[in-house]
């Protein structure tokens, strides 16, 4: 049943590419969003099958494949991956739907069949990576999704797309290399199979575990991205077209944090507490650095991109803390971040396609009710408030749980991260103030109107953001059980990190 989530979009991609009839862009879009929508509803159906009280992997499927290298088709979900799978199928659908923007801007989407095929393949690969219970299988999906993303940036991106795409490719390829080295090392040293359940790192000495874990963290740290490894992100996010940015920011960055929890914390519970403090420090640096850089931006999309770096760092902090509550917070924050970043990128895309600019020095007064983009502006305020962690929206749930969970372990670092949340308000108020408030400039006052179909994705995302903010139980109940399980196996709550014990004495 889970396999459908992976293979249906990929088969759909093949259908779109090889269909003998030549499809117009809108027909391709209709077909692709049909496939995306069907996948999403199948995900919802599976959600109804999910046992919230069950421990460990559910709905698993096993198929021996290349046994001589230990690669088995072994998939399943638990409370950690399921929310992300839901998020992924939903965002792929939304992104495909909102690819309409290019059409409204005047020029129809070039090479639509390739575009939608790549989007669907990307969706299938991300789902595959999230579902994989075999390290090699995870790695395969993790690497394969690189190619569609590279092409999506490189063909449909902005002016600097060649540079951005290549940079993304190189960084992410290296990310894969680090992850693979770590996986291989773990498997060879413990001489076990690649299947997740069988892997035990405890048999290894402390030093080797640390080396493998650090390698893994670097690998995923590129993907997340953590601060010294982040430079690909602003380029890739800004050069990518709107639907691709939505996927990049919304779900691809979650693969890194997911990997960190699943493989870092999950496979190296013994030594996790030793790297937790430095990792948390890096997270704090990321959050503060990215927030401060965001304050300095004059490009709407760059601002959102840096804010994405800052907010994903909260997940890393919560993961480092490793308490049940902070892990629950991490999952919630990943989900919240996915929705919010997708919403913000979508809105920035609308602004860009209507005004032809993302420059905060040019845009002004877009809240004008008759001539501006009032609904876009209103939703932007909502998205920005959600991002800044205003109660009543899902961003608050994610951040509050993360911070509350982390505070008992890293009080100072958590407080520093709170400063970064405060900075979110600073740079986003700058954004709103410059672009949406004030007087509409007479020179740019003749903007085309936003069609209803262009608004729908943003409206749906906003409704979800508010709904989950008011009724967070819908989200948290997924992962409560799993986060307790991960936290207890890693033993973090009873044994706080070494440094923390130092400080306490």
């Amino acid at each position, binding site marked *: 049943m889970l396999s459908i989530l992976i293979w249906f979009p990929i088969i759909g991609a093949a259908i779109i590419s090889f269909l003998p009839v030549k499809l117009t862009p809108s027909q391709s879009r209709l077909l692709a969003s049909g496939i995306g929508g069907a996948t999403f509803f199948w995900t919802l159906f599976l959600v109804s099958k999910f046992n919230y009280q069950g421990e460990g992997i559910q709905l698993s499927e096993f198929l021996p494949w290349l046994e001589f290298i230990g690669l088995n088709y072994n998939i399943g979900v638990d409370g950690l991956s399921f929310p992300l799978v839901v998020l992924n199928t939903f965002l792929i659908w939304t992104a495909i739907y909102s690819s309409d923007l290019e059409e409204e801007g005047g020029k129809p989407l070039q090479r639509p069949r390739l575009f939608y095929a790549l989007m669907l393949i990307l969706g299938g690969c991300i789902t595959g990576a999230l579902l994989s219970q075999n390290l090699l299988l995870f790695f395969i999906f993790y690497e394969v999704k690189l190619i569609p993303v590279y092409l999506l940036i490189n063909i449909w991106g902005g002016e600097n797309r060649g540079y951005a795409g290549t940079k993304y490719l190189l960084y992410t390829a290296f990310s894969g290399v680090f992850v693979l080295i770590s996986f291989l090392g773990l498997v060879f040293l413990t001489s076990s199979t690649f299947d997740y359940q069988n892997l035990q790192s405890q048999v290894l000495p402390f030093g080797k575990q640390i080396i493998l874990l650090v390698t893994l963290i670097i690998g995923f740290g590129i993907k997340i991205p953590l601060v010294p490894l982040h430079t690909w992100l602003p380029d890739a996010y800004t050069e990518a077209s709107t639907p691709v940015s939505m996927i990049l920011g919304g779900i691809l960055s979650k693969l890194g944090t997911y990997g960190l929890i699943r493989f870092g914390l999950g496979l190296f519970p013994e030594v996790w507490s030793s790297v937790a403090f430095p990792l948390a420090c890096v997270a704090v640096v990321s959050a503060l650095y990215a927030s401060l850089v965001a304050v300095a931006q004059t490009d709407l999309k760059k601002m959102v991109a840096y804010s994405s770096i800052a907010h994903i760092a909260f997940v890393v902090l919560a993961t480092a803390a490793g308490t049940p509550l902070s892990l629950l917070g991490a999952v919630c924050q990943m989900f919240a971040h996915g929705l919010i970043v997708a919403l913000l990128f979508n809105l920035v895309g609308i602004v860009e396609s209507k005004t032809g600019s993302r420059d905060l020095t040019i845009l002004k*007064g877009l809240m004008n*009710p*008759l*001539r501006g983009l009032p609904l876009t502006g209103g939703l932007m305020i909502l998205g920005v408030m959600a991002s800044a962690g205003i109660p009543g929206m899902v961003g608050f749930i994610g951040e509050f749980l993360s911070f509350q969970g982390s505070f008992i372990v890293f009080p100072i670092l958590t407080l520093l991260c709170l400063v970064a949340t405060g900075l979110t308000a600073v740079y986003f108020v700058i954004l709103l103030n410059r672009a949406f408030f004030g*007087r509409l400039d*007479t020179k740019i006052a003749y903007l*085309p109107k936003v069609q209803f179909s262009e608004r729908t994705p943003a409206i749906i995302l906003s409704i979800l953001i508010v709904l989950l903010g008011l009724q967070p139980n819908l989200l948290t109940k997924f992962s409560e059980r799993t986060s307790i399980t991960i936290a207890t196996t890693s033993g973090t709550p009873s044994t706080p990190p070494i440094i923390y014990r130092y400080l306490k004495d």
Partner: protein
Amino acid sequence: MTTTITETKIPPSTHEFANVIHRLEAGGSMLPDTPENLMQIIGIYKAYAVPMDFYWRDLLYIAERVFLNPLPFFKYFLPKEYLDLHNHYAGDDADLRIWRGEATAHPELLAFIQKGETFKMPKLFHHLNHDRINMEFAEACMNAMLWHRGMGGQFDPYLDTDEYKANADRAIKAYFQGNPVMLGLYKLFPEMFIEQVRQLSYYANLGLFWEVMAPVFFEMSDIYDEGGFKGVPDAMNFLVNGIFAIAGRPIYHHVYIRGKCYEIIPKSKGFMWLYEAALPYVEAVFYRTSPFRGTKSYNAQAKQVPDEQKDFHYGILYADVLPVGTAGIPPTLLMDDMLHFLPDYLIDYYRQHCRGEDDMLIQLGITFQRSMYNVTSAVIQALRTALLYPLDDTNPKHLMANRRFFEAQMDRFKRSEARLRDIQSQDYR
């Protein structure tokens, strides 16, 4: 042809708006003469005249009948008597027939009062549903005239005379006869009541001003429909002629209390339409008014609002129409009123531009601005005719005097907010 004459007689102007000045000297308008402009301004005159037909009736109703009612809940509910009131400049029994149509309320207005934008229901429900004419706009214009005093004329000084106070006193005592509370209050605070009556006199003043303008605009619309106007200058000249024809009409304030008429400002005072209503109105509403709450800060330290009332420049000639529909922008009320009565050709025209029906409020607002530049041109030409020399005068000295007059008028549009630059281009919409 006049252009060539003036150009040969005196050297070209070096003013920033030299083009506009040369056009005015050639007998033209500040608004460029294009068929598109003509179509727009006439269409908007029509759309403006219908609510105006309501404004003047209601303003007179408030001034004459509601008077000092301390709780005037129903002052926007016109009784049949005032809807049937005969306009002095239309119909068969007109004093001076400007519009060939009916003297009673315009049929489109009656239809709107009946059905509004929704369906036929009692007036009260239309009012509560805000499906109505925004009379508050007319009151805001009245307030601008009341507050911007000293714009010439004898009307305003008269409001401070003892004669006026005695007239008002009689009316106040008659109105509150048998009401000891209000009479007691009047005894305690007489100025409070007198000031209210002054305001009501301005209600009457503005009502009488618009009683003229409504038929003028209706007639212009009719002439245009018959193909009578060849260009924008024709439309302007019609206004100029209208202004002179009507200039001497009386401005007065009568109050009717229990069937008896109290003349607070009697017709015998000889206040004339042109000097006591039209010119102060143009100055107060077209040029000055008061800063929009939504665009300027009243913070005294910010110094955004001038100290001197004569420096106010927030009228329609300077207004920024783009934020119409936003909070704190008073002209929205008028634009919304005109929206109900647009002629079809104008609706079609708006549909083809910008966002079509979605931002029609702004598009018609900009058209309204154009048309008011034409009306102001008419006023400027009328003033020039009254005070200076004809345009085809052969004496260069006279022409220079005209030139100086036009330049002085154009100086008022030198400030950056003035929309005179914008309306020169058809792309400003």
